[in-house]
């Protein structure tokens, strides 16, 4: 196995073109922080993008940043922080969950996996902030799509296709993203409740209010206790959290109104900036399941928010199950034992997928050993029509299946 570390887009193109000509498969790697995420692959060679880094354009007043795909997230975040800006989709650092240590990865990797944090419900996903790219297709050809401007409908929106394609269509060398100002102030309202249905009622009321909620999550008692924030564990009960951001006076006003509104459902408290940040980072990075020694299988389940409580209750019957909700009830993070008795020794895969199929939504196996990932797959199985279309799309970009073969689905 050869590992190529291209330093220019041209070198990247040569490496892919060579692999295509020789029909070698290659794995594509940013910082390798999500190597354990996705179906396991056995490829003949590897392309490492870590030398295709560096911010090449950053115009804060135009809300735009362009960088090599291999630019470490730490570098991007630092540059943005200097101008009081951020990537509003709140990319998670899944390093703790997957490898036991911080590993935020690269900008290209964040886009290619389309992972977004708690602010997703207000500000959109990674894909919504992705303006343009240049890259090399699995045909060994350099191509581009999108641009550097906020509004662009020129041709198909290939950015959307690249976001969340896990390197299976093309290797991006350079990406352009929309950046946004950081809020002046943030506050979090806590509602103590053990009942997930009450929690989702409160989150829904908050999200349906005019008070622009930028985070809506619920932790059950045990997970609230482990967050390490006094007010969160104070009542020894589950905690719904509602985040409000914006200019100071507005945040104070909105918090007061929201507290009034959800206060009818239980006791409330308010977290101020520092502890609030700790809580939302904890939720964003799935820290409840990242403790040393926790080797449970982890699922990320996306459903209609109103289905959240019912799905939560059903998955809790699995062995070793613990779960919490984000996105107003629409995102359920679930940890379960690998073996779930005679019926299901596959990390609850059958049960989880059955439940999700019935409620409508999507379950992703985020943490599991290679055998499990190979065996049950990582993403929700596609309906036959969509599966066929997915293969055809893959075929148009990477006809020989050179790039990250099988990372998403068998043959894709």
């Amino acid at each position: 196995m050869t590992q190529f570390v291209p330093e220019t887009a041209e070198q990247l193109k040569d490496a892919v073109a060579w692999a295509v000509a020789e029909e070698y498969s290659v794995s594509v790697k940013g910082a390798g922080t999500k190597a354990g995420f996705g179906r396991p692959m056995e490829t003949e060679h590897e392309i490492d993008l870590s030398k295709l880094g560096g911010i090449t354009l950053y115009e804060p007043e135009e809300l735009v940043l362009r960088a090599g795909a291999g630019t470490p997230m730490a570098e991007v975040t630092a540059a943005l922080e200097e101008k009081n800006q951020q990537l509003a989709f709140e990319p998670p650092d899944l390093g703790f969950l997957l490898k036991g240590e911080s590993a935020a990865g690269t900008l290209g990797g964040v886009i290619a996996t389309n992972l977004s944090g708690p602010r997703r419900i207000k500000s959109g996903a990674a894909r919504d902030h992705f303006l343009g790219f240049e890259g090399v297709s699995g045909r060994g050809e350099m191509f581009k799509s999108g641009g550097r401007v906020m509004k662009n409908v020129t041709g198909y929106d290939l950015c959307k296709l690249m976001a969340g394609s896990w390197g299976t269509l093309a290797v991006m060398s350079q990406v352009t993203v929309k950046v946004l100002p950081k809020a002046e102030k943030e506050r979090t309202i806590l509602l103590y409740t053990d009942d997930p249905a009450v929690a989702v009622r409160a989150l829904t009321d908050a999200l349906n209010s005019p008070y622009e909620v930028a985070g809506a999550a619920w932790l059950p008692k045990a997970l609230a206790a482990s967050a390490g924030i006094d007010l969160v564990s104070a009542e020894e009960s589950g905690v719904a959290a509602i985040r409000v951001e914006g200019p100071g006076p507005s945040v104070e006003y909105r918090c007061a109104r929201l507290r009034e509104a959800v206060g009818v459902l239980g006791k409330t408290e308010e977290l101020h900036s520092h502890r609030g940040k700790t809580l939302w980072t904890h939720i964003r990075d799935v820290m409840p399941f990242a403790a040393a020694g926790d080797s449970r299988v982890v699922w990320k389940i996306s459903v209609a928010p109103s289905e959240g409580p019912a799905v939560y209750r059903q998955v809790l019957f699995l062995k070793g199950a613990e779960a919490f909700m984000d996105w107003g009830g629409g995102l359920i993070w679930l940890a379960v034992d690998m073996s779930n008795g005679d019926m299901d020794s596959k990390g609850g895969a059958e049960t989880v997928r059955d439940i999700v199929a019935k409620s409508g939504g999507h379950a992703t196996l985020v943490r599991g050993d290679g055998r499990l990932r190979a065996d049950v797959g990582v993403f929700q199985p596609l309906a036959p029509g969509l599966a066929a279309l997915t293969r055809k799309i893959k075929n148009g970009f990477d006809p020989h299946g050179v790039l990250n073969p099988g990372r998403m689905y068998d043959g894709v």
Partner: protein
Amino acid sequence: MEMPKPDDAVLSNRLRIADDLRAIVPGEGVIVDEDERRPYESDGLTAYKTSPLVVVLPETVEQVSAVLRYCHENGIKVVPRGAGTSLSGGSLPLEDGVLLGLGKFNRILEVDYDNRCARVQPGVTNLAITKAVEADGFYYAPDPSSQIACSIGGNVAENSGGVHCLKYGLTTNNLLGLEVVMIDGEVIRIGGKHLDSEAYDLLGIMTGSEGLLGVVTEVTVRLLRAPETVQALLIGFPSSEQAGDCVAKVIGAGIIPGGMEMMDKPAIHAAEDFVHAGYPLDVEALLIVELDGPAQEVTHLIGSVKEIAESCGAVSLKISESEQERLGFWAGRKAAFPAVGRISPDYLCMDGTIPRHQLPKVLSRMTELSNHYGLRVANVFHAGDGNLHPLILYDANIPGELRKAEDFGGDILKLCVEVGGVLTGEHGVGVEKRDLMPAMFTEIDLAQQMRLKCAFDPDGLLNPGKVFPTLHRCAELGRMHIHKGKLPFPDIPRF
């Protein structure tokens, strides 16, 4: 504008094809009579006209599916049409193509506040969605100026924007799910009421695909709760540089207004003459900045914007004191296109996007071009996101003038690309900008886009002649030219 050569066999079979289609869509739903086809012969880009082969107006998904399957099996082209307000000729018919009108799909199927979404049929107008939920305090955010007329299906196909895009996003950022009928009649469902299905983002790809990938038969849109307060500032500047500077400083101060629109002098005058909005007539550029949220926040931000505007040399500044006054500020802007329509027999509406700081350069080049072509131009500008709408005034009755206007428009769009922008920000490529695509994309870029089309529509039957300047067969696009055996690049670091 050259369109694909009509298929004589199809043309001569018009009546038989109409009969076959009547077996699928009974009664009035199939239009073959020449006079009755006429209303469909162009869309919002009225400079182009073609009478379609037949018009079909299905009412059920099963009918859409059967019509497409029939056309697929018989090699007949299909042009989907919503309300026909496209400004790029997206729904321009083909002589040998079935025009598939979605106008009868006009029902709101479900409003689901707990999940903040609505499921609607594609023929529902953009504004009708907001109307259906506004009594409960909700709205659908993207608001194209054509919102009374344009359909949500058309919005999806064009990825339409509006004056509130800067803060709330385009159509693509406000969708959750779609039902799509593929050219072979297969019905697929994408997304739903949940967020971010982890798979190829077909929802994202369908949005803005200009009717070339599939026919949308159901749309799940995100609903937002309406803000408590909305207020606007109307600010006049002695130069567009100063207005542009103000826009940059507002955003630089961390403020993302709900809307931020600019008009130049000719546009201000045309709008004022038309709706008497009370616009100042002695300024070179007018900004409308709208802020929304709780009253505390709006008051606070209005103060900040006012201060910035004054520091940038504003010569007039009004803050709306009532809802009526705020709507008055917008009345001129929203009527800008028809207002320009009044001062000129015809106009072309361009739609480039530029990096905002290039505005002064683009405007001054535009003045030069205007002199060169001898045609007037008025500008309205989604200033916050750099989306420019130059309106080129011409008279179609003067021989050669349309051609001149098109060349002028082409030059403007090439200029947009040259300064780092793009050919179209929200109106789509359609037929209008089709031949300019090479100004922005290489042949490889375009071929890669066409390969995506091949995955959906391998025979190229859906809306051909739009978006891509040259048509290629999918087999040809799939071919690879491979040079084996070259030893890999001594200069790539490897381990």
